[in-house]
């Protein structure tokens, strides 16, 4: 078997293996969020409904169907991307997602990219100065970052940059061009970075610090290579697998779940906000779509991460 067909075979086997995983994940998420989720009947019916009206509505919502029928219908809808209409607004779920996902991507992407780069930089500094003052300061900052409640960070940033200094809008997403975009995304990006920095720095530092004692780093030092080159080429380069995996695992959050708290607090019409609204109101078509697509995307991400790991490091395959 040629190397190319071996890779194709691997990809197909991994994708086939993802199918039962997707079925399992969607079944659990269906049971938790839809079957055991809120019942919207009485939120959608008028003040003094007749028994017939209540029964008609329940039938229309599918509440009178057995769980297996409802799950099969859910899978069918998910597969055909016929996601129905939101119960609360009547808007098609597809158009809701098409409207909100780009907003969430634009909102969270800068925080994800800058946050990852900054975390890598700080982790590299800490790893290089392992045990030193700088390492201790960065570690302490990371712990503080992990301990801070995101809600407190959001309210604090909003108050400081929006109300007190008045540099950025307190809320909203009136984006009509690049300047507006930067204006609206600055504070949420800062919040996202603060929220993720501590965890990322701790993780990356642990990975990089372990590599600092390796033979190749000692050899590179012996050759007289500079610290930046050693760190980028020999330390980070050798640890791309865990770094890429961690970043990839953030993508489902970025694309589907959005950033629920950030979007709610800053009044940004992204997918996180509609998910939050759907959870509190029990709007099942939206919940089913978001949870189902998140699950599918997560499984795909795991599969892609796995394949990438094998491509980047052939030893993974051999193991």
């Amino acid at each position, binding site marked *: 078997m040629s190397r190319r067909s071996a890779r194709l075979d691997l990809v197909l086997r991994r994708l086939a293996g993802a199918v039962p995983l997707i079925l399992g994940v969607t079944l659990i998420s269906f049971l938790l969020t839809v079957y055991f989720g*809120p019942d919207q009947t009485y939120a959608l019916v008028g003040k003094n409904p007749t028994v017939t009206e209540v029964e008609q509505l329940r039938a229309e919502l599918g509440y009178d169907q057995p769980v297996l029928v409802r799950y099969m219908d859910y899978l069918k809808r998910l597969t055909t991307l016929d996601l129905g209409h939101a119960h609360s607004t009547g808007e098609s779920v597809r158009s809701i997602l098409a409207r909100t996902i780009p907003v969430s991507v634009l909102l969270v992407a800068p925080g994800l990219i800058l946050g990852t780069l900054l975390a890598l930089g700080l982790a590299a500094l800490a790893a290089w100065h392992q045990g030193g003052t700088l390492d201790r300061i960065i570690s302490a900052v990371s712990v503080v970052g992990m301990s801070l409640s995101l809600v407190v960070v959001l*309210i604090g940033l909003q108050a400081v940059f*929006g109300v007190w200094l008045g540099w950025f809008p307190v809320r*909203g997403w*009136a984006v009509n061009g690049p300047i507006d975009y930067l204006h609206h995304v600055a504070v949420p990006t800062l919040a996202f970075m603060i929220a993720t920095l501590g965890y990322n720095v701790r993780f990356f530092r642990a990975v990089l610090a372990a590599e600092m004692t390796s033979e190749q780093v000692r050899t590179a030092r012996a050759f007289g290579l500079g610290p930046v080159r050693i760190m980028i080429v020999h330390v980070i380069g050798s640890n791309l697998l865990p770094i890429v995996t961690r970043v990839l695992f953030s993508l489902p959050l970025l694309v589907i779940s959005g950033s629920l708290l950030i979007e709610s*607090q800053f009044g940004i*019409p992204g997918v996180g906000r509609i998910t939050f609204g759907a959870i509190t109101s029990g709007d099942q078509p939206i919940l089913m779509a978001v949870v189902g697509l998140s699950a599918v995307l997560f499984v795909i991400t795991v599969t892609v991460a796995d394949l990438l790991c094998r491509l980047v490091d052939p030893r993974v395959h051999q193991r």
Partner: protein
Amino acid sequence: MPLRRATLLVCLMFLVLTACDSEPEQPQRVYRHAIDGVPGSLDPAHAANIYASTLVVNIFDTLYRYRYLARPYELTPNLAEDFPQVSDDGLVFTFRLREARFADDPAFSDGRGRVVTADDVVFSIRRHFDPVTRSQGAWLWRDRIVGLDAWGRDGADPEAEIAGLRALDDRTVRIELTRPYPQLLETLAMALSAVVPAEAIAAYGREFAVRPVGSGPFQLLSLDETRAILEANPHFQRDPLDLAAEGFEPSLHARYGLESLDGRRYPLIDRLEIQFIPEPTSRWNSFFSGRGVDNLMVPPEQATRVLSSIEPLTFQPQIERDFQTYAGPETGLVFYGFNMANPEMGHHEDPVRERDNRALRCAIRDAFDWQARNEVFYHGLGEVYPGVIPPFLREYDAALPRDSIEHDPAAARQRLAEHGWSAERMPSLVYGFDSTIERRQMFEQFRAQIADVGYPREKIRPLGFGSFGEYHRAIIQGEVDIFLIGWTLAYPDAHYSLQMFYGPNAAPGANLFNYANSDFDALFRTAATLPPGPERTELYRELNRMVIDDCVVIGSLTRTRLHLWQPRVRMLPDREVLSGFFLRFVDVQDFDS
């Protein structure tokens, strides 16, 4: 080389983002209004809450509306030319419409809004009875209009005539009632009754809820989960604003600078942005940043930050200096209800046990301390009164004894002792609440007070629910025995609160308590057909006394709303009776140029 690539990439991103610039140039007079919730559907048939109502009454027309400044609330014609002609028996109403046009929309054959006709009014009420509509407002006219219920039951044939709901000509609507319905005109001022064009319903189906087309003062430009942008509807024509007719009183309203609006045509602004901000801190920050929303209904927990005294109610001097202010009662009430369907503490077939159960409920009521509740959770800003007819209604009875709202632990203990309620005999009761910190604190306060008169703490069991919807469902399905609820009046008439105790309205209807009292029901039926007047007022008060005497509820309290708005805005905000009519009269003075 990598640097060049990165620069190119950044430039490309900027180009893409610039290309996204599709929002039209900002008009000049913009008012940014904040509300504390998100409207669901903007289809009038679903506009049963204040958030949807605020938008719907401004996008669509209702036959009647409330006068801008008159309190108590008074109806005035809106799409209707005048008040209707009413037959001597009070059963036939004839309405004449004024000339109005729907906003332009692709749903119309030439894209241009057509004239609103009597057929549109008929269609808009009739569709509530079509099961496809999934109406939340059909209950308003059920069994009230001749032939309407049967039309819905028989398949809702659009070609079929309804004897009691007809268009006599393009501008005349005739409604024939099955029995007198004194609140009919109030229902025709509700967002649920707003007039919709059949073409738009046919064109957009369920998406009409997010693509509304009406003949109101504004038309929807865009809508998402955080805001709605509306612009003035160029087809909207009404007589100029007559402040005196709207209830202007210099002693009450002169400070708001409304005189300059007199005689002007409305709407007075080009663009209305309604922002949906459920998070109190976010609403607060947006208002006080000076560049966000133009108004703020002060969150209750922040009241002390804007007030210098509660009695008399005074805003802080700096707040008075920097903003316009208004304080007024909500048109609603907050109270505890008992699940009367639970024989352990509610109705019982054994008359002795029935009396014992009543004594138990009354003892719990005596043990509860409204004063403490008001001070701890409402900063003393609530008004506590006996029964369920609030003081802002004409039918309020100021002479009613106040013992039902007084904290009297001694009386509670005595009642329990007299009816043999020992700690062992007292039933376990489930106290339901939606799981917020505040609701949990309210439960703890309630339980401590009840425990103080000898009710075992472990027998008052908390049951939290993840959302208000779930909590509401649990009340309807009888899963909780004691529950705190708020009730907002959709029209200013005690009928709206007393219907909560009418037997045929038992859960899932408005009678969440499952209160069953044939005397009450008979009296309610009589009162419901009477026109406003001393006779009806007396019946309403008698019904209120029955609710108090039977200890069905512990209540009530009406909260005080505190409103702030930027001085550049000329208005008097109003969030009550499920309306938002005032937005058509809002003006901004130093608008963006």
